């Protein structure tokens, strides 16, 4: 094989590997990016209806209800401006508490519930997930612009 051909083969080989890798990355990113939406955005129908996303905020006090199977739970997530009911089947993480921040991942159901397939908890009491913090921050801005004090 002539050196020129050899070089060509190398270039072709690396380019095709790069191409395959890029395709893999873009394809996988497209499918697995989870955008984050706040309850207000969901209430305003800004969230996608057929795609999974993340919802963050606070669990409303006293909103946690357990169905008789003991595993299906419903609770309400709020950013102090809007409330979104969430349904989840499974065991809640240790740090899930009413009045605390939560991030849930899932899709919007037909009945307006957010159907979570994952409820995320962080491993520190005093740590608020940035998504949840942002939701509260945004809601506070909305409340402030509307010229009213935030409602608890």
């Amino acid at each position, binding site marked *: 094989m002539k050196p020129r051909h050899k070089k060509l083969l190398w270039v072709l080989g690396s380019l095709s590997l790069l191409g395959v890798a890029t395709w893999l990355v873009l394809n996988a990113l497209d499918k697995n990016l989870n955008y984050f939406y706040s309850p207000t955005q969901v209430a305003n129908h800004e969230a996608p209806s057929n795609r999974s996303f993340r919802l963050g905020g606070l669990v409303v*006090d006293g909103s946690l209800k357990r169905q008789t199977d003991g595993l299906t739970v419903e609770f309400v997530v709020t950013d*102090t401006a809007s409330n979104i009911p969430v349904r989840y089947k499974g065991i809640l993480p240790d740090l899930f508490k009413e*009045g605390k921040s939560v991030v849930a991942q899932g899709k919007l159901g037909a009945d307006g519930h957010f159907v979570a397939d994952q409820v995320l908890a962080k491993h520190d009491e*005093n740590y608020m997930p940035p998504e949840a*913090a942002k939701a509260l*921050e945004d809601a*506070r801005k909305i409340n*402030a612009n509307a010229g009213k004090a*935030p409602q*608890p």
Partner: protein
Amino acid sequence: MLRFLAPFAVFVALIVFFAIGLKRDPREIPSPLINQQAPAFKLQQLQAPSKQFSPSDMLGQVWLFNVWASWCVSCREEHPVFVELSKSKLVPIVGLNYKDKSADALQWLIQFGNPYVLSAMDLDGRVGIDYGVYGVPETYVIDKQGVIRMKHIGPVTPEILQNKILPRVRELSK
């Protein structure tokens, strides 16, 4: 030999993103509560659980609202600053005892001194959330009309008190 510089170029691009990422620290976001009415609440008082406290009780005077907890280590750093300040009677300090146990909190005040005219008990941290508490300690300056004029996150040092908080208090008290 430009290709040997390629790794460096990639690295520089990464660093730029990191720098921006670092700058987007939540603490740097100006609180939307500034120049807004202080969120209303009604909470039990720590030393007199039969009595309640509400921010409207303080209308007509400039006051400091300090979020503290007995479990919070940096609160102890700023505490002597407030104890000194309370002796000078320049401005009343109200405490928000955040996610604490009443017995621990009382013990703590006995040990380190009590600079507060009173402390409200925010057992579950709901009020803290309304005020956008990122971490304890935090301190708010609230004016005569009950509007938040300043917010400080983290322990208050003598410098911050002298250079930032007290000038603002004096200005608002006029």
